[in-house]
């Protein structure tokens, strides 16, 4: 890795000032599990690393307030997977967080890092999409809330302005009966990224939201308001047809993990599976 400067601001204002001053040459550091690989491979080329782990507002915390579960930026995935409130209200997020890398990675990697890295295959993205999470970001001009579906702009690209930091990810706690599940196809659990990932959330009023990962330039959200997908007693052919129509939003590439054709087919298989699991969970509530 080439020479660079390391800054460790102790205040949010200090961090924002640094990011502002260094512009595109500064790179925020959270868990580092993507950043350090990027530095080593030369895909990231900052001259200043701004370590965010000593900023009080970003310190690991999962807080429950007014129907929102707020996960602070530097909360690591291991703690999200193990959190009782996440498991209860957002089980697919707990599942997805427990799927990222292996123990060593989950002990270090953060939720904010996972979404800011903005990989189309980010495991936590499909659950955050179906749970309608909001990203709380702060910059020199103040704080703003970004709906997660507006956050992902493309591979490695987010809606964050230069110099903005993620403070937290907020999840609205479901009020009615809801069922959700996450599934991922991968070549080797513990080391490889998702070949395809899907998250499903079905509500009591019959809305189905599906989050697709690794099948397009960014994680995708598709919604069925008709009630068809959420109704296990509906005509199977009609349900499969609707699912196939929703899956046309996907535009996977062929790469080292799988061909485009395989991904498209597995997207449907995985969607059927997680949808069934989500409906079952809704029934258990």
């Amino acid at each position, binding site marked *: 890795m080439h020479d660079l400067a390391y800054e460790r601001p102790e205040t949010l204002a200090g961090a924002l000032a640094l990011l502002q001053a260094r512009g595109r040459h500064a790179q925020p550091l959270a868990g580092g*599990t993507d950043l350090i*690989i990027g530095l080593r491979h030369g895909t990231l080329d900052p001259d200043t690393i701004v370590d965010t782990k000593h900023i009080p507002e970003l310190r690991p915390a999962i807080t429950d307030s007014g129907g929102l579960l707020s996960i602070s930026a530097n909360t690591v995935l291991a703690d999200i997977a193990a959190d009782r409130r996440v498991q209860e209200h957002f089980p697919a997020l707990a599942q997805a967080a427990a799927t990222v890398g292996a*123990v*060593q990675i989950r002990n270090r990697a953060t939720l904010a890092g996972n979404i800011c890295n903005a990989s189309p295959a980010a495991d936590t993205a499909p659950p955050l999409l179906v749970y309608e999470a909001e990203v709380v970001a702060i910059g020199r001009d103040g704080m703003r809330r970004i709906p997660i579906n507006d956050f992902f702009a493309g591979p490695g690209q987010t809606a964050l302005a230069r110099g903005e930091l993620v403070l937290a990810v907020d999840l609205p706690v479901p009020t009615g009966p809801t069922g959700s599940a996450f599934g991922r196809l991968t070549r080797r659990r513990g080391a490889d990224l998702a070949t395809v990932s899907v998250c499903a959330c079905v509500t009591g009023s019959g809305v189905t939201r599906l989050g697709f990962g690794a099948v397009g330039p960014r994680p995708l959200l598709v919604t069925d308001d008709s009630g068809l997908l959420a109704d296990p007693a509906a005509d199977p052919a009609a349900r499969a047809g609707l699912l196939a129509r929703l899956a046309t939003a996907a535009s996977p590439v062929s790469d080292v993990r799988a061909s485009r054709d395989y991904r498209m087919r597995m997207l449907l298989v995985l969607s059927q599976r997680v949808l069934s699991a989500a409906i079952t969970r809704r029934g258990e509530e």
Partner: protein
Amino acid sequence: MSQTRRIRLTVNGIPRELDAAPQHTLLDLLRDTLGLTGTKACCLVGECGACTVRLDGRIVDSCLVLAVEADGAEVTTIEGLAAGGRLTRLQREFLAHGAVQCGYCSPGQVMAASELLRAHPHPTVAQIREGLAGNLCRCGCYAQITEAVLATSGEDDQ
């Protein structure tokens, strides 16, 4: 040249005060500065687990931690496990079950298994597979490693 930064950390119970360059990893610091070569460098992308160490009570891939991030931290490496030169029960079971072939992955396997046993003193085979999923063994000693962990399960002196 990058400016080095003075850091203080405790490694295997010994307080250390060192200069670290920002681009150096904890792995570099342990192996090259402190000579603790039990921690292995292998994939350098956080997939193989050969560089596993305990950092403030949690196992991490030391290839994905900058040395400067470990300022103020408590680090345990494979050299820190065998207190007074006496192998832990887990290490003895690794030997007894032939869980070591070329041995390159073993320090990381032992660190990860040690963490697993702290969290789950009586792990199931599924828990062992999950707990060691981040540690690759290219000799394919997975069955023997699992047996060694199972043999340590529930023992007082893990």
